[in-house]
């Protein structure tokens, strides 16, 4: 019974701490994600740096990601991924529903075509997975979609939740979608 009480309290704490969201995105299908991506890579975040965009209008954050595996398309050994929002000199601009990066996190990223040496994540948080290992040592791809993003289907209804999947299955699924789209596949 004590355990039940503890679980109840834990659930309350989690519910109270869950942040809400503020941006609206249309759900992209796996096929759309692949077609919109120049590359899909697995890697690790080496460095995260926030700064004011040269226009001075908004803070952006760039993550340097070491590419350990190219699942689709071509990518350099280190990619620079840009997202909006961040903190500079104690000031925060929160870009709700946009990808957020942490140093040392292992990631799987769908990347839009590079522009000026910088890539963006395809589909915002839909194209960003964190990679973890479960107790059995199996690698899992965990979606980063949070309450900051309202993801809706094209008919306006909330899109079905994206679930944590085995990393190898997600990679196989990406390659299958790429084959369907007539894209060259990089087998590892």
């Amino acid at each position, binding site marked *: *019974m*004590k355990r*039940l*009480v503890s679980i*109840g*309290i834990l*659930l*309350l704490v989690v*519910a*109270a*701490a*869950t*942040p*809400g*969201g*503020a*941006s*609206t*995105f*249309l*759900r*992209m299908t796996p096929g759309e994600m692949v077609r*919109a991506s120049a590359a899909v890579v697995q890697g690790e975040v080496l460095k995260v740096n926030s700064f004011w*965009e040269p*226009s*001075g*209008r*908004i*803070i952006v954050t760039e993550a340097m990601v070491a590419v350990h595996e190219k699942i689709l398309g071509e990518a350099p050994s280190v990619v620079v991924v840009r997202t*909006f*929002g961040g903190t500079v000199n104690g*000031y*925060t*601009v*929160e*870009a*709700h*529903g*946009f990808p957020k990066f942490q140093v040392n996190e292992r990631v799987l990223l769908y990347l839009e075509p590079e522009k000026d040496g910088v890539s963006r994540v*395809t*589909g*915002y948080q*839909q194209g960003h997975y964190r990679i973890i290992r479960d107790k059995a040592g199996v690698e899992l791809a965990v979606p980063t979609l949070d*309450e900051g993003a*309202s*993801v*809706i289907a*094209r*008919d*306006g*209804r*909330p899109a079905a939740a994206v679930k944590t999947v085995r990393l190898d299955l997600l990679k196989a699924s990406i390659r299958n979608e790429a084959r369907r789209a007539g894209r060259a596949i990089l087998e590892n």
Partner: protein
Amino acid sequence: MKRIASFATVVVLLCLFAGSLSAYVLLSPRRTWDSPPNVIVDNRGQSSISDGDLGRTRTRNAITSSSAWNGAGTGTRLTATVGSISSFTLGDGRPMLNFRDPIGACTGNCLAATFTGYYQSRGNGTYRITDADIVTNTAWNWASLGETCSGQEFYIEGVMVHEVGHLLGLAHTNVSGATMFPSVSACNNGPASIETDDRNGINDLY
């Protein structure tokens, strides 16, 4: 007796938890404006809206309507003015509703994005919003109540009342039909009118 007390505690906790799943949610950390913000509505309007005014006046009227946040029962929550957004910048203390996206943040599958910026701690666990801006993706078709809505168009009034809810400090709710529910159907302007859950949320904040 101990077991009954424990059981009752669990029931109460579960009820509270269930309640939290079906009620308004505030942005975390909790943040509010010190005084009602004046939102500048982009005077260029939205080019896909064919109501003769490109939706700007109807958007301003919708977000300040007594059917929306100003009608929640605790006074004026915001004012709005149609004006120039040419100085659009996060952190300038001038909240703006931009019908375009000058920073290129909301492209592709993004319909509209809200940035809350420069909120400072008051030292009591709450934060002060000093600026917030909204951008819109022009790649999607928008409509206003001043025209016939067809196909996959979204009503600008409903979407912007929802986004302004975020600008004021509200997050998404699980209460279907509420303005802050994270969903909008094409040609459904329901979110332009706030519901009890939205009213409770805004009155909790202010």
